[in-house]
């Protein structure tokens, strides 16, 4: 089987991740619950992961790294915890439903929402941010990179706009964490929402929010915290403020091993390897008859995604043929990003998304190119 669906989840992981999770089952209790050795070991392991994430994302205080279960969980926490009816928020057509649906729900309750459009190559116009400003604009909420096309947004530029206009800047780093450089201070990010199971190589059920100094998020969930048990209210201090209930300490141990791998290998080396694989695939298919590739493939900031279709063929049928006949896993359909598909004109057809991993090989890419050639009879 050849796995080209890393934008969905990094099925291909460093072996140390699996080992760390396995070891965690034998060595970790419940973090922050009790003072016995197993509980303390879990607390240390979770805290270590907070320090790794703070380092990776340019955040000074690891106590402001709050764990969640995935990016959707983190984004809902940030969006519902920061905005209220009457606020105005700017977002983009590149967004995943993890951004759009919380905003749409708030919009139904009276939030004002501006969605910056994307062109037929999935690009926004940065001048549109200034045009969208209103007196009650509170924030920009946007992805770092489209999960459909792989095109990135310039966080430094948007962050500077937010800083100039006193806006919060909430970033969805689902597709970019572990691949594209992120620095919360330099890019003026207020809240960085990430998932652990994609580019950070962790297990599913890990993720979180990094919250800049001075940003106060109302908790979405309250309950067990391991601290302040006799208070009627959930603790106000980060990170416990946003971490109700026993966390996924075994998963976080795996995430920690994934972060070790990134630190040892180097973010740049990972990105360059993935880019080279994506480029090899793109160059191998782009001139074949009937092949349509979506997105701006010459943009400077990209993740390792190639979004394509074969003439008018249904994307699901193409993905199914790739799986059944060639053992190649891709993702067809709408990718939970409806506005992107409206922009690209692929609402009916869908798109076949190839997304590549540091652990894929050139031989696998060449096999996929051969499969596409065979499917179109070239």
């Amino acid at each position, binding site marked *: 089987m050849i796995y080209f669906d890393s934008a969905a989840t990094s099925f291909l992981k460093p072996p140390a991740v699996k080992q760390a999770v396995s070891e965690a089952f034998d060595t970790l209790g419940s973090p922050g619950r*009790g003072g016995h050795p197993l509980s303390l070991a879990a607390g240390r392991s979770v805290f270590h992961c907070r320090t790794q994430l703070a380092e990776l994302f340019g955040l000074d205080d690891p106590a402001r790294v709050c764990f969640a279960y995935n990016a959707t969980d983190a984004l809902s926490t940030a969006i519902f915890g920061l905005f209220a009816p009457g606020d105005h928020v700017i977002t983009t057509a590149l967004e995943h439903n993890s951004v759009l649906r919380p905003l749409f729900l708030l919009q139904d309750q009276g939030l004002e929402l501006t969605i910056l459009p994307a062109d037929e190559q999935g690009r926004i116009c940065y001048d549109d941010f200034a045009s969208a400003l209103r007196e009650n604009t509170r924030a920009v909420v946007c992805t770092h990179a489209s999960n459909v096309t792989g095109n990135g947004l310039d966080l430094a530029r948007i962050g500077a706009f937010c800083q100039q206009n006193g806006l919060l800047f909430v970033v969805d780093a689902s597709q970019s964490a572990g691949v594209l450089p992120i620095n919360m201070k330099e890019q003026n990010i207020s809240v960085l929402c990430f998932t652990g199971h994609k580019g950070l190589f962790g297990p599913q059920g890990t993720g979180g929010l990094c919250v800049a100094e001075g940003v106060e998020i109302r908790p979405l969930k309250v309950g067990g915290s*391991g601290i302040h048990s*006799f*208070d009627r209210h959930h603790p106000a*201090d980060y990170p416990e403020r946003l971490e109700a209930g026993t966390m996924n300490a075994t998963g976080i141990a795996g995430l920690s091993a994934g972060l070790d791998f990134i630190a040892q290998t180097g973010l740049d080396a990972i990105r360059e390897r993935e880019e080279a694989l994506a480029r090899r695939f793109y160059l191998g298919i782009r001139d074949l008859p009937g092949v349509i590739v979506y997105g701006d493939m010459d943009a400077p900031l990209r993740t390792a995604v190639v979004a394509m279709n074969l003439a008018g063929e249904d994307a699901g049928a193409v993905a199914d043929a790739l799986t059944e006949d060639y053992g190649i896993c891709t993702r067809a359909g709408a990718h939970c990003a409806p506005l992107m598909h409206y922009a690209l004109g692929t609402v009916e057809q869908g798109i076949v998304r190839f997304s590549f991993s540091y652990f894929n090989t050139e031989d696998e890419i060449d096999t996929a190119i051969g499969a596409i050639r065979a499917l179109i009879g070239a």
Partner: protein
Amino acid sequence: MLRKKSPRVVVTFHTTTAAMKTEQAAREHDVSGRLIPVPREITAGCGLAWSAPTEAEEALRALLSDIGVTAQNFHHLTI
């Protein structure tokens, strides 16, 4: 049979994360003490406390200041 009691300085915290941060820094800077469940004589937000020999108090206060941890309280207990 519990162990023999001795005078200790016991630091309580607002959060588990602050307790973890303190332990890591104490180990790195060779400040003595260890994390214990909060003794019943005191109440604290977090169930973990840092227990150290009383002579380590000064070094401990300096360490907490360096790493930006605000202790909930300092207690002097024989435990």
